[in-house]
């Protein structure tokens, strides 16, 4: 006599998850575009980034930068209905190293150790244009970007700790293209600041996505972010402050 197998809750969840994961991606494209129901996307990525920029600290100038890719985190969440969606992103990275500091006054140039951490969080509202019948779409987005710089510069006589953060308005666009049943790509960019927060900030990114299952895509992306910022009160200024690098991630949509 064969006894029907009994499955516990964990097994049932596992079977359910497997069914979702292994489901054919045939309808996945439709899910990405103009879904009249509430839908969401969770997109954590490993961010292999580098950072560099020219920093002025009151009367000292230094270059922070390391072309070596650092493992960092970047993630985004989207929640939408129809053409509208809200997008939140978060990324953080950091570098440390030794650099030459140009000092005004008798000390001249000295070597210094530094730690630089960058944190960026964004919140956008986006609206999609174009026909859902086509294989491409434009989204225009606007919102706010929060940026935090933490820079510690240590020399023989002590350590200077600098913390700067600001919020700035951002406007941008994202172009989405279907490339057959399996692949899709996006190009997105935005401009922010204009004296409110940073002097200017600028992002451009390209993403290639592969549909693994109905609900999961693998993504490879390149993101370039540059900001120009100064704070007269503290004397902190960064020019051509760039963080860029590659993202490898999984994109869960439901």
């Amino acid at each position: 006599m064969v006894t029907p197998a009994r499955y516990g809750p964990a097994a049932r969840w596992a079977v359910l998850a497997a069914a979702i994961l292994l489901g054919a991606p045939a309808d996945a494209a439709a899910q990405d575009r103009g879904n009249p129901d509430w839908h969401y996307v969770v997109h954590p990525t490993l961010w292999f980034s580098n950072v560099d920029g020219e920093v002025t600290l009151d009367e000292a100038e230094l270059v922070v930068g390391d072309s070596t890719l650092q493992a960092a985190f970047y993630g985004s969440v989207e929640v939408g209905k129809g053409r509208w969606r809200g997008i939140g992103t978060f990324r953080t990275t950091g570098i440390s190293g030794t650099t030459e500091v140009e000092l005004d006054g008798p000390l001249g140039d000295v070597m210094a150790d530094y730690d630089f951490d960058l944190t960026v969080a964004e919140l956008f509202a986006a609206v999609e244009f174009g026909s859902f019948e086509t294989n491409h779409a434009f989204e225009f987005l606007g919102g706010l970007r929060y940026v935090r710089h933490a820079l510690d510069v240590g020399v023989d006589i002590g350590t200077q700790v600098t913390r700067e953060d600001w919020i700035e308005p951002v406007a941008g666009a994202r172009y989405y293209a279907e490339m057959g049943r399996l692949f899709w790509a996006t190009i997105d960019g935005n401009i922010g600041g204009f004296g409110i927060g940073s002097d200017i900030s600028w992002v451009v990114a390209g993403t290639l996505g592969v549909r693994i299952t109905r609900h999961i895509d693998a993504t490879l992306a390149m993101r370039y972010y540059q900001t120009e910022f100064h704070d007269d009160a503290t004397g902190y200024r960064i020019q051509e402050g760039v963080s860029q690098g590659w993202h490898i991630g999984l994109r869960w949509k439901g």
Partner: protein
Amino acid sequence: MSGLRHGTLVAALALAVAAAPLAGQDAGAKKANDAAARETPAPITAWTPPPGLGPLTDVSDAQANEPFCCDSRELGVTLIEIGAAMVIPWYFNRHVSDDSTAVIGPDTWWANVEEGFEWDHDNFKTNMFAHPYHGGLYFNAGRSNGYNFWESAAWAWGGSFLWEMFGENNRGAINDWLATAVGGIAIGEALHRASVTVWDNEATGTERALREIGGFFINPMGGASRLFRGEMSRTGANPDDRFPASVRTNLNGGFRHVGDAGADPGTDGWVGQFELDYGNPLRDFENPFDAFTFRVQLNGGEDERIGLFQIRGGLWGTELRDSPQVRHTFRLEQLFHYINNRTTETGGSAVAASFNSHWSLSDTWGVGTRVAPTALLLWGVASEYADFTRRTYDFGTGFGLILGSDLRMNGTRIVGVDWASLVQKNLSGASGTVWQHYLITRASYPIVGRFGIGGEYWLFIRDSNYTDFPDVYRRHPEVLLYLTWDTSEGRFR
């Protein structure tokens, strides 16, 4: 990249040469345009080929109706052409020019992947004209093989990215990636549309040969695709959308004076212009670039022969109001702008939200207006601090406002005035903000048949406010007087 520069010059000249066959095609549109021009703007009428250019009698129905490219997207040919657009410049740089940046391999590829992008220091023409033209090759590799505008745009982005990462051993340039891709989309689509009007699948003999050669120079990738598919020597039906509802081409030639705000006596020389007004910007916006304007200017007495290269194409549009007296429309536009002469360098890619209107004053006269808030995606403008930037110009981004108005007689623009104010925050170069103002006035009047006289006054003002350097204020007036030849016999509509 000298090969590329040569290619761009040839292409620009070919466009001017191509004006004649283009004009021939449009002679038949004159009646429709004349009648339509009395309305403002005129309704779209189907273009009818002139009697001599209809299907040849020896072409069988089967051949005449045989569709040329493409029932499906030709991925293989596209990849071959994009590969050629990379390998040929690389081979030239590596083995002809002995350019050290062309020594590439896995080590340089990994280094570029790891280090990412930087801003490069190439000259203005290379960065803001040659690279966008190269992007147009990537774009048209797709466009001429069955991909639509947007899909071809993806090829421009992808091709440019691959070249920057793997085509040279120096770090990829973020400005090159963007200028090549975005500018390449505008240049590519404009040249694609122009070449399609030149190619005639129904023609034979000498005319066919000339058309194939002319189209090839305008759109090399499109020509290569026709060659691959054997379409160059095959007769068949022309595509339904070969011609827009209206088209106007002009060749202008005359005298030019450009000054430098009294700093020196200025430069005098000859000037030659080619203008293409493709489609009706007030009505044709079903597909991207259904209506666009293209303008190239060659300057004598200058080191840089191509002094101006402009494209303004509609990406999307909608009608806001239509009545016998007035028509209001909205059009999202892509702009490509390049000015390079002895007094200034400025240009880049932008998008504009353009509100266009046209009022009928009478059966003969009408007034058009344009209000276009504009976002500068990537812009370059001259800088005095080349020692610091290692360039004669700075890169930046920003926004602006473009205003325009013109007076038209029977649909032909008699007088036009445009004003643009752009503010650019520098991203690379001398830190600061640069205001740019353009005043452009144009007038032309037909004298005899297709020929007339025309003139333009340009005033370019640059007000550069630098963080670390003294501010700079420059005014560059420019005067053009020329004879104008309406090679299309068309009308502004």
